[in-house]
């Protein structure tokens, strides 16, 4: 049962073949069996999940009208506030904090009766591409436990790939949903910026952060997308417009006559041969399905990484100033006569990890008087140029495509001491965040040289998220026919999953 898609689980619940309590318990059992090895979860809310599941079963028994995913379990990235449940963001500075409120995403999940199993591991405050920056230890890729599951949302992607949950929530600032999906053979979507509320998402870089759906199929991400999306007055940057019809797009998977633009600059040198081979193969399948493949150029994308590593740290240096040891979280050095300033300094020294400190200092520098124009100011101009590149490219194509990341999953520890090498993981995902458009990663197969999953990225214009779902569904169907079974069937069997 745990190997089904969320849509299949929902259908079994509707047909009365199982109950949400049984389904939830099956996933809790799976977590108990494999999570010692995978370490996808920072907190498992056994009691809360079972209570929520029991409540859905009662509603169903009464014949109440329920939402499409009602009763299906989900893993929640630990950056989203959930009332009464520990929320750490993978940081020591928030250890033990239980938010007194629900984020809007969590409120929407509860409204849809989606059962929250627990909180998943992540790079501290979502800063990283490997989940190695979590203060609570790394998560392991279910395909190969010595490798990274991507980051920052490596807990969510690993939970899906290890069949610990059929649905998960991620957040994507520079690729933190799409890159973990790519390296674990799962599906992840970063909706249009403003499409899903950021209220209660602990802020890293406010102009880039976006929560989104993760799952094992395109249709499951679409169902979850519609459950969490929509205008929210509590988030001033939330878009007040109807939610794109992504479920209909994922169900039709029709790409006949669609123009698909291959971004010339997001391929070639620096991309692993197996990544390029799977990308080319996917393009052929989409052409066979009736899409027209065109090439587009985005000359300013080569500056995206540099601009991102100024804009994101700048915003983070400001956002993380709230962790001041005064109102919540860790407090260190509060002895008689200690000043507030020394308590702040000591708390932030102990509470933040290496990468978070690195980015706070970089951001403080980029925003400081005398350097502002040269660094932060120039980066903002690059952001304009990247957005213009997208606008021009979307004149020639309905959606754009590229490999999601240059390589497959690397070994834990391999890049831990080389920040620049680590940052290069996000080279193909970052432009999407800079322009605020939608992006999806879905599995396109395994690289021949290492047998590890490769991701295919699809990008849609602002609030036209349905485009990437149509293309994603078409490619997924063509690949399934080619493979004869889902890609995850090829993953090593862990802990005796059926």
């Amino acid at each position, binding site marked *: 049962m745990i190997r089904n898609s969320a849509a299949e689980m929902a259908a079994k619940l509707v047909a009365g073949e199982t109950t949400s309590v049984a389904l939830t318990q099956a996933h809790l059992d799976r977590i108990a069996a494999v999570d010692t090895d995978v370490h996808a979860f920072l907190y498992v809310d056994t009691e809360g999940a079972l209570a929520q599941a029991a409540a859905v079963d009662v509603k169903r028994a009464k014949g109440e009208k329920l939402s499409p995913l009602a009763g299906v379990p989900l893993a929640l990235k630990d950056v989203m506030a959930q009332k009464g449940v520990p929320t750490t963001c993978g940081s020591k500075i928030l250890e033990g*904090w*239980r*938010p*007194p*409120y629900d984020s809007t995403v969590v409120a929407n999940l509860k409204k849809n009766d989606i059962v929250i199993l627990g909180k998943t591991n992540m790079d501290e405050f979502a800063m990283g591409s490997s989940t190695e920056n979590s203060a609570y230890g790394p998560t392991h890729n279910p395909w190969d436990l010595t490798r990274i599951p991507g980051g920052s949302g490596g807990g969510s992607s690993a939970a899906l790939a290890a069949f610990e949950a059929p649905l998960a929530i991620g957040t994507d600032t520079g690729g933190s949903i799409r890159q973990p999906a790519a390296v674990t053979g799962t599906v992840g979507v970063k909706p249009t*910026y*403003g499409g899903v509320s950021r209220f209660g998402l602990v802020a890293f870089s406010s*102009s880039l952060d976006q929560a989104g759906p993760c799952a094992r199929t395109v249709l499951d991400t679409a169902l979850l997308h519609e459950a969490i999306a929509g205008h929210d*007055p509590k988030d*001033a*940057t939330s*878009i007040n417009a109807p939610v794109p019809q992504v479920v209909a797009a994922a169900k039709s998977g029709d790409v006949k006559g669609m123009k698909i633009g291959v971004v010339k600059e997001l391929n070639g040198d620096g991309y692993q041969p197996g990544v390029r081979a799977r990308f080319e193969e996917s393009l052929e399948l989409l052409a066979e399905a009736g899409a027209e493949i065109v090439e587009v150029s985005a000359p300013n994308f080569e*500056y995206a*990484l*540099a*601009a991102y*590593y*100024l804009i994101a740290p700048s915003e983070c*240096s400001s956002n993380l100033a709230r962790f001041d040891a*005064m*109102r*919540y*979280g*860790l*407090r260190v050095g*509060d002895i008689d006569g*200690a*000043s*507030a300033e*020394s308590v702040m*300094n*000591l708390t*932030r*020294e102990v509470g933040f990890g290496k990468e978070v*400190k*690195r980015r706070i*200092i*970089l951001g*403080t*520098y*980029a925003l*400081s008087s005398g350097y502002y124009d*040269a*660094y932060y*100011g*120039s*980066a*903002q*101009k*690059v*952001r*304009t*140029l990247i*957005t213009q590149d997208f606008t021009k490219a979307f004149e020639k194509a309905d959606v754009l495509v590229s490999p999601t990341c240059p390589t497959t999953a690397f070994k834990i520890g391999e890049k831990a001491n080389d*920040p*620049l090498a680590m*940052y290069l993981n996000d080279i193909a995902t970052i432009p999407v965040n*800079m322009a*605020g458009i939608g992006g999806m990663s879905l599995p396109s197969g395994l690289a021949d040289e290492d047998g590890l999953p490769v991701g295919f990225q699809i990008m849609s214009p*602002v609030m036209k998220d349905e485009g990437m779902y149509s293309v994603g569904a078409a490619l997924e169907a063509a690949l399934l026919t080619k493979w004869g079974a889902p890609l995850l069937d090829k993953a090593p069997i862990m802990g005796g999953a059926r």
Partner: protein
Amino acid sequence: MSSLSRDDVAKLAGLARIEMSEEELVNLSQEFTVILDAVARVQEVAGADVEPTSHPLPLRNVFRVDVVVPSLTPEEALSGAPAQEEQRFRVPQILGEE
């Protein structure tokens, strides 16, 4: 080539309110030489005629009706406080000794 000395990093750490060990200061100043060279590329491309983008959405001020709605109770607001006293956050000394 851009670089930051150990003292520059110490000053920034002070501004960011992070106590740092000597080892951290030295390591960061070394790493910053490489990182700043990489990010300085942003200065190569955009001319004076390019407008900066601070945010992906063309939003102006977003208003709402000014009505009272339920919010956190004092107990809830204080629930994560490291220390509290008489329904208030208890914080270390902010002003210096007289």
